[in-house]
Structure formats: C-alpha cells, structure tokens
C-alpha cells in the first residue's frame, strides 16, 4: 500500500504504475456530470485552489446536514467515470489535477492526457459507499449546491487513507484495456465458435 498525501507533485504521480494500491489523505474535491459540463463551459478561476496538485473524485454522495449547518458524508462510493471522457483530459491539464478517482476506467483521450499532464486514474471500489464515507473525515464546504443539487455539487472534502487502485498510469498503461482485450477473445469464441 502506497501512501499518497495531497497536495502531491507531478514527479510522485509519475512514479505510480497500474496495479499499485494506494491510500490517499488530504483535501480533494468531488465533481461529476453536471459539474464537468459547468467547468468545460466556464473554466472558473475559483476552482483553481481546490484542483491544483490535488484530485477530482467522481462521486455523488448521500449526505447529512447537522444542526450547526455543517455536513457529513453518509455514503460516498465512486460513480462511473467514462461519462466525463469528453472533458477530463482538458480539465486535468487546465487545473493541474494529478488524479481522478472513479470507477470503470476512462478512454483513450484521458489516457493520452494522463501521459501529457502527469496524472493517474485511480479506481475506487464501486458500491463501497458506507466504508468509503468513513474515510471522508471532514466536509470543508460545498459549492453550487443550489444549482447542481446534492449528488452533483462540488464537495470540498478531507479524506484519510482513502483506498484505491491505479488502473491507468502516466506511461500509457491501462488495466481496463488489458482486461477488455482478454475478454474480447473469450467472447469471440463463445459467439462465433
């Protein structure tokens, strides 16, 4: 298990290889579908401090609001990342984001972007929501809650030992491509004999 502390340098990220298991600690931000579309259309400066040398978590949490106005995450697993494929490479490059955390992997454009920018794709376990919420030790703040709603707002969070696996690295490696090419062979045999 490799410990990653945020903010993190490009050099440290480039050392990671597919298959590495990591535990992440520090501040990061959530962003999913509506948030990515908003970024891509507006390129807001206010997001810069949350993104630089940090990570974007593809997550739409179940939250609880406390009487004092503070929030906590109740359930917070990853959402499917491939829907952000049209945006992610540009977003990572523009804001110097060092990793995205999600599930299911991403495509060729993002893979090329990871090599160019110095980033990795971290796969969290889909549906591990109760356990992962425990690693979100603090919700610093939430942005655009009214406009985007609870699942799609920008949640600025602090995590401690958040577990994930590197499935796409900055050297062109993608576990998703490897598994797909193996299963394609089996599927072809089952379908065409």
């Amino acid at each position, binding site marked *: 298990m490799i410990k990653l502390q945020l903010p993190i340098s490009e050099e440290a990220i480039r050392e990671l290889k597919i*298959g590495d298991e990591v535990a992440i600690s520090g501040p990061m931000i959530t962003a999913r579908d*509506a948030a990515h579309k908003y970024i891509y259309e507006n390129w807001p400066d206010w997001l810069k401090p949350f993104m630089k040398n940090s990570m974007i978590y593809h*997550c*739409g*949490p*179940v*939250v*609880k609001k406390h009487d004092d106005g503070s929030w906590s995450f*109740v*359930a*917070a*697993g990853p*959402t*499917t990342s*491939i829907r952000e494929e049209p945006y992610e490479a540009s977003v990572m490059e523009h804001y110097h984001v060092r990793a995205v955390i999600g*599930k*299911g*992997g991403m495509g060729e454009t993002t893979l090329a972007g990871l090599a160019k920018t110095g980033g990795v794709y971290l*796969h969290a*376990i*889909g*549906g*591990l*929501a*109760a*356990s992962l*919420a*425990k690693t979100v030790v603090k919700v610093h703040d939430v942005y655009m809650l009214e406009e*985007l*709603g*609870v*699942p*799609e707002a920008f949640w600025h969070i602090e995590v401690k030992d958040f*577990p994930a*696996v590197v*499935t796409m690295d900055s050297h062109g490696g993608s*576990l*998703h491509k490897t*598994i*797909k090419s*193996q*299963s*394609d062979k*089996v*599927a072809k045999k*089952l*379908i*065409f004999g």
Partner: protein
Amino acid sequence: MFQYDDKKLKDQLLELIRRAATDLPEDVVDSMRAAWKNEPEGSSARSVFGMLLKNIELAKAESIPMCQDTGTNIYLVYIPEGFSMRKLTALIHEATEEAVEKSYLRPNAVDSITGKNSGNNLGEGQPFIHFEEWDEDYIEFKIMLKGGGCENVSTQYKLPDVDLGADRDMDGVYKVIVDAVNEAQGQGCAPGILGIGIGGDRASSSLAAKIQLYRKLPDTNENAEMAKMESKLLADLNELGVGPMGFGGKTTILGVKIGSLHRLPASFFVSISYMCWAYRRRSMTLNAKGEVTYD
C-alpha cells in the same frame, strides 16, 4: 378489500425502503461470499470481494446506504380487488420523501429539461410504480433500488443482429447476451445479475427483463429450456474473466434470470437488464389485520 391505517402504512413503507438501501438480501450475500472464497488468495478480485463484504456488514450494522447511488426505486405492487392505486402511490411518495430526510435515499430525481434536482427523490416517473391486481387477500410491495451505473450498461438488441451472427432463435439470444456482458466490462459494478426479457415490444420487453430481477438467485426457471439456458450462460459468462469491478477474476456474473413475452412477427427484442452486485431488492406484505412481514 380491508382498511389500513395511512400513517402506519407510510411508516412500514419507510422501513421497507430502509431495509432495501441498507441490508442486502441473504441470497445475494451468500453468493458474494461464495465468490470471495472462489478467488485465489492475494488476488485483487479476492481483495475486492473482501472489502465489499465488509461494506455490506457496515451498512447493515449502522443502517446506512451500502451504495450512495440509491438508484431508481422500482416498485411492483400486488393488490386485491378494490384498492386505490392513487392512495397507495401517495403513501409511497410520502415514505420516499422521509427516506431522503433520513439519508436512506439520495435525492436522485433530476428534471431532464431544466437540469434541476427536485431534492426529494420525487419527479415525473420517479419512483417507478407498477401495480397488478391478484387473487390473494393481502397486499405485497416489492421494491428494487437500481443504480444508474448498471442501468447505463443495460441494453436492448433486435434480432437478427448481422454483426454477431445472431438469428431469431435461442442461439441468437445467447450471442447478444454474451456481447452485452463483454461490452459492459466492470462499468455496471460487476459482478452483475442479468434480468433478460425476450420478445414483447421495446417497452414491455424492458419491463419483463426488470421483473425477472425480483427472482431469488438460487431459484430455477419453471421452463426447462430457459432453465438450461440460464445455467449455461452463468457458466460461460464467468469465463470472460472480467471479474469484480472489471479488475479480472472468476466471477463476472452472479445470476441469469430469463423471461419471455409473445412478440409481433416483425419484432424480436432481447432486453438485458444488468443489475450491480448491490442487488437491493426487498418485499413487504400487509394483511387485513394491519400486520406486515418483510423479506
């Protein structure tokens, strides 16, 4: 027809939702445990199953959703003659709003035109409630929480499919199912459970596929040919090696459940409803005495 107490039934429906979101059915947990045992020590597949089993226990112990995507809430409601569907729908809506307040459900209903989240998980077509009248003297509510990731990899084919060499027969049905699971990879939170609807029109076929998902994992199809097809597909699909989360492994699919409808001479649809491992389905019965049982 019997009388029920509105407030009491609303609370009982809230409890049904809580159980669905936080407590995975025993047959699914058993299947996950068996999959965990079947993966070699030290493999990432085994480690994923281990983490998921811990997550299932934690969600149950602390009564919190096992997955943050509490999904489309799909209800099948069986009623004796005379019950008002509108009144029961209103109670389901009330229970849904309260479940959001209690963080059992995420507000998951987004206006498709404006992009606005309704905030209470209610909206046009949400939750989805399907009523059927039956001869029994009690009401049964079945609920399934189906996440968006697995719904997105669910699909529908029309036969013949030239690219796959799939004709209008059971062999053709087999081929498109293999293709669908291979294309889904880990995106639908594998290992998945497949509900298959053969025939019908585009809408009825999809619903038939979803209704298959209310069957329990160990049951056997009453139709011998389809029972055979289900076990063949389960064995063959696990040869794909996609594994939990698409990390590679021996378990890609936990179950295959097939149903069929009559079709038009012109149409031959095969609908594949892919359900994630967080196979959240629960049921509740309500009798004339106001007593409920949960399963």
